């Protein structure tokens, strides 16, 4: 992960500040930085989103392609995640430096989506055992300013909300050979329901308390963090501990409760922004990358 060097005195200052619920930028322990979300920024994808949280900038593109279902799940489509840590984010990612972090994030995304209710995979099936939709979710890290996992999940959820999969029909003629017909109307698509898509809340343990949405400097002061993946109803789908330090079971329980609470608010804000953007219609001013 991109890291900053800090002096001992700076770390002590940050740790003491967190104990008193006043972080370096004036936020409390459970406050997020200001978030900007925009969908439909990449034109040749089925769905895309860009999320900016402080100095962290993530771009997600979803492409829907036709393929064969997996052998063990013949009635379902599936999602494939790929994370690219661009060298623009930090010089550490140059060449193959970002690959480790990319695989770690991709594996976390697979884990949190690895349950029956996050995405309705059966709606992605076209004909069992033969054709299904595969959603390739590509995540691009443009800038790294701390709190990567949360931002990436928000962006993935927004991109899935924006995804439009063309409606297809399977036609069978007398000889039994199947033909797939794409509807003529380019706006005739199916959309995924993202109500149960989870979001990750990263809780970093600093001193005796934990903070949400840590900056790079705060991450450097934290020895252990807990990644909690929460749905909009507060159900935890997966949990992961990162970092070299150890966590007390009591604090894990507290952090999980905070994660659930914060996660519900996160989902509510994201839903309202996405619906607001959709209500602006196709005539809305797209800000994109040059705004």
């Amino acid at each position, binding site marked *: 992960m991109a890291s900053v060097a800090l*002096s001992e005195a*700076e770390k002590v*200052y940050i740790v003491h500040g967190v104990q008193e619920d*006043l972080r370096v930028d004036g*936020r409390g322990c459970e406050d997020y930085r*200001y978030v*900007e979300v925009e969908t439909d920024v990449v034109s040749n994808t089925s769905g895309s989103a860009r999320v*900016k949280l402080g100095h962290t900038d993530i771009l997600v593109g979803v492409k829907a392609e036709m393929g064969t279902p997996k052998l063990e799940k013949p009635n379902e489509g599936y999602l494939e995640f790929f994370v690219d840590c661009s060298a623009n984010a930090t010089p550490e990612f140059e060449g193959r430096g970002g690959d480790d972090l990319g695989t770690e994030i991709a594996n976390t995304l697979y884990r949190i989506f690895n349950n029956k209710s996050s995405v309705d995979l059966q709606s992605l099936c076209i004909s069992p055992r033969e054709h299904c939709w595969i959603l390739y979710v590509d995540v691009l890290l443009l800038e790294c300013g701390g709190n990567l996992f949360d931002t990436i999940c928000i962006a993935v959820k927004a991109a899935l909300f924006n995804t439009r999969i063309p409606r297809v029909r399977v036609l069978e003629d007398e000889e039994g050979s199947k033909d797939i017909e794409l509807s003529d109307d380019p706006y005739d698509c199916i959309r995924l329901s993202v109500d149960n898509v989870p979001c990750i809340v990263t809780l970093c343990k600093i001193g005796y308390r934990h903070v949400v949405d840590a900056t790079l400097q705060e991450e450097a002061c934290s020895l252990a963090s807990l990644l909690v993946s929460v749905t909009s109803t507060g159900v935890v789908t997966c949990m992961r501990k990162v970092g070299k330090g150890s966590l007390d079971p009591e604090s894990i329980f507290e952090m999980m409760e905070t994660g659930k609470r914060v996660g519900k608010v996160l989902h509510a804000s994201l839903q309202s*922004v996405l619906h607001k953007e959709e209500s602006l219609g196709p005539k809305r001013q797209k*800000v994109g990358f040059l705004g």
Partner: protein
Amino acid sequence: MAMEMRLPVARKPLSESMGRDTKKHLVVPGDTITTDTGFMRGHGTYMGEEKLIASVAGSVERVNKLICVKALKTRYNGEVGDIVVGRITERRRSAEDELAMRGFLQEGDLISAEVQAVFSDGAISLHTRSLKYGKLGQGVLVQVSPSLVKRQKTHFHDLPCGASVILGSNGFVWIYPTPEHKEEDAGGFTANLEPVSLTDREVISRLRNCIVSLVTQRMMLYDTSILYCYEASLPHQIKDLLKPEIMEEVVMETRQRLLEQEG
């Protein structure tokens, strides 16, 4: 807990909100500044094909017969006598160094120093030969573009709001609680690791957000601008200063006060 998500808003060009009378002449590398050959060429320009062409992106400044281009965003160019704040990234590995210096300075430490000499390849040598320089203790570092730090007589400021600031010419701004005893300045080589009081922390966080707002709106940083910005920000909560519209409002008020003071 607070969480705010919004749709992005396109940035307004600064000239609209500022209402300047004279528009700055902005150029990019390769732009022709003038075809008149009577001018002397200064920094950021070169002569090519009978025309004066800009080599950096910035605004054109003209002093009588001298034309130069002042870059908007540039790497720090050291000059003798500048105060800088820096972080130790690497150290010389020699026996005497190991024995003597490691007790005082480690990798990652922040120091304030003065530029002693500038070499022809751009390297700078620093000295801390005064008690006001040396290792920095507890505080907050803000990194800004070096072109936004105004050249002044002194870069160490004890602001009346209750904290002190070092405006490094290299763009590193250090905000720290004002030490009570005057003998132990920000310098020396021992760091005070006692907890800083909550009131001091609030002042430091507010100053940090004010400096970030000034820099986002491309305003020059000096003690008066930081102080006016601090006073303009008092009606808002510290964490609200991170929101774009409040940032704009506060900086607009600061700009007005500075114009009134000049005029």
